[in-house]
């Protein structure tokens, strides 16, 4: 088409439609600019509200309501799901404790998968809150020779036993101590929580945790829209943004309503027990008083409220 004498319709068209095209372009430009300005202002307002948002503990009840409404709207836009965010207070006179029967656990990882779905964890990249370690029965609890990435056709593998590890909800949590902005703290019922809207993503807590319980959102979490759990808690399983730390909350959205954590419910062999440490009649107290119990890394004085025991 290098021929300058070419006067095909295609070449002539722009000249004929010159005026209307110019008008069209200018019109489009104004329309786009107006749209960009309008949406830009709305987005800016949202971004500004998010930017200046206060620490969870500083929010007045009214501010909390507005913040939750804003977050629910954003989740609606992002996931197309009607996510309900609760801010359920702790139940007075309750201090939660957890026990796991090492002689029963078969390493099936049903707790891991149940937890991922229940707690709106990213599917890709996957950052499961529960890590199941496989160790030799001969060697006993020996983390240096544990395998977190075992992949057998069938579990339990011969000669092996399994130790699931997640947040130990320490009475003396090193992660809380090191956080430079108080974005993580221990609630009165013993649950260690994170304010995902206050965390700066410095990862001091990941370094301080002796149990590998804390996980960082290295990229934007991906959750299939149809798999969102819409029953969420502000300090618990609501979808997290990129760049903040998350971890197990013992299903704070369930336990504060009197339900068991998901992992307790899905365990097929009944290895997981959960209850109120302050209630002398509770199952967890029975286990502590009658079974051989151990805690992980007791020499660090973190005082976990997660107990391993040999039930058989």
């Amino acid at each position, binding site marked *: 088409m290098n021929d300058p004498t070419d006067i095909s319709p295609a070449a002539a068209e722009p000249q004929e439609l010159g005026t209307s095209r110019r008008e069209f372009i200018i019109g489009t430009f104004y329309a786009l600019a107006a749209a960009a300005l309008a949406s830009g202002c709305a987005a800016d307002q949202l971004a500004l509200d998010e*930017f200046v948002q206060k*620490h969870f503990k500083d929010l007045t009840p009214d501010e909390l309501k507005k913040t939750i409404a804003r977050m629910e709207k954003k989740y609606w836009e992002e996931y197309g799901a009607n996510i309900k965010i609760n801010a359920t207070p702790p139940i007075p006179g309750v201090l939660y404790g957890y026990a796991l029967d090492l002689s029963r656990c078969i390493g099936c990882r049903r707790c891991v998968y149940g937890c991922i779905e229940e707690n709106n964890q990213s599917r890709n*990249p996957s*950052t499961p809150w529960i*890590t199941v*370690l496989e160790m030799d029965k001969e060697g006993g609890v020996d*983390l*240096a*020779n*544990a395998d*977190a*990435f075992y992949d057998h056709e069938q579990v339990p593998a011969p000669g092996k036993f399994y130790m699931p*590890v997640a947040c130990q909800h320490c009475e003396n949590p*090193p992660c809380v*101590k*090191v*956080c*430079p*902005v*108080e*974005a993580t703290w221990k609630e009165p019922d013993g649950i260690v929580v994170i304010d995902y809207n*206050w*965390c*700066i*993503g*410095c*990862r*001091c807590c*990941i*370094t*301080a*945790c*002796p*149990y*590998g319980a*804390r*996980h*960082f*959102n*290295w*990229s*934007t979490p991906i959750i299939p829209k149809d798999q969102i759990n819409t029953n969420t808690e502000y300090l618990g399983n609501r979808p997290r943004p*990129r*760049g*903040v*730390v998350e971890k197990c909350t013992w299903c704070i959205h369930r336990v504060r309503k009197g339900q068991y954590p998901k992992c307790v419910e899905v365990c097929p062999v009944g290895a997981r027990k959960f209850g109120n440490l302050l209630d002398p009649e509770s199952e967890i107290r029975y286990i502590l008083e009658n079974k051989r119990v151990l805690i992980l890394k007791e020499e*660090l004085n973190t005082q976990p409220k997660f107990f391993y025991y040999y039930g058989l």
Partner: protein
Amino acid sequence: MNPLVKVKNFVFGTGRMAFLGGSPVYYGWLLFLLILICQGLLAYSHQFQLGLISTGLRDSVSWGFYIGNFTFLVGVAAAAVLLVIPAYLYNWKPIREVVIFGEMLAVAAIVMCLLFVCVDMGRPDRFWHLFPIIGHMHLPSSIMAWDACVLNVYLIINLFVASYLIYCAYNGKKYNPKIVVPLVILSIPMAVSIHTVTAFLYNGMASRPYWNSAILAPRFIASAFCSGPALLLILFQILRKVSDFDIKDEAIQKVAEYMAYAMVLNLFLYGAEVFKEYYSNTHHLVHYKYLFSGLHGQTSPIAVYAWMSLAFAVIALVIFLIPKLRMTPMTMNIGCVLIYFSVYIEKGIALIIPGYTPDTLGQVYRYVPSMTEVRVAMGVFGIGFLIFTLMVKVSVAILFSPDRKVAHA
């Protein structure tokens, strides 16, 4: 004259000095730094879009190259004290005139430190959560919050003293010692504190036995006294060649002598650490095994750097211990470069990575910095060197140009 006009004149005047009247080599250097900065910005925008997944970091090894560089530069910033102590405490003249370069190096190094922390943050938009009053500074329990305090105070002190001295000299006045001397004296414990608090940041983590050692802070100070002065000695010799800045051999030799003591202490403390781990041979030895060889039959990707750093430190020590070699400029400079890189590798790679490998549940993630991390780090160094270069250019023009000297006389 109206003080505002005076400040305006000072800003424009020093601006002219920074950018005008340089040699082709000077402009070439500025261009090189600008290229470094631009490619760093590109790499950072990539990281900003994708998130920190574009680094090699993961939950197992959650701090790496960025925080290693941060730690190294805190040491460089702290090393300014080495020059300040003899100058002001003993009123030892030959060093006194070069103190200002130490302070400017401290300013540039702290700016780089803060940038390395920013690029490592998951949510840099929430930096204000660390501010007093409007944020939640978790004092006194969080060492990270303390570190943010001391680094910023140290930056402000050094920035103020350096710019005040330049400002006075620019206006042909003598500086007020009642302002300068107390601040310089204050900056001595501050310098020790920034590196001590940074060491405590790791040292206080009981979950990581590799760092949980009482001599970590002394080791940090000793290594900083090696790397910081090494950088300054090379700088002084360059300045002496290309400008009217004058420093006596006597002063250079004195600094080199201090460095020799620091190197002995540095290797001694390192040896003490290595002895403790290998002789007691507990489970905690795995981190040193990962550092020097590897685990589970696989060679560690950082072992070669660990040995390199150690070899550099030993060769530099030999050079600085033998007076004849230390006093020969050629060999002294080789020693400076070796010790600088020895400490750089030690802080950048050998300090952070083995602390995380294996992780707290015994799993091995073989972290190596991604290209993004290396490029962003180069960009940060570009910004730091640019700040330092411009400050040096201005101060040399004001403090050491012949016509100014005449004006003072």
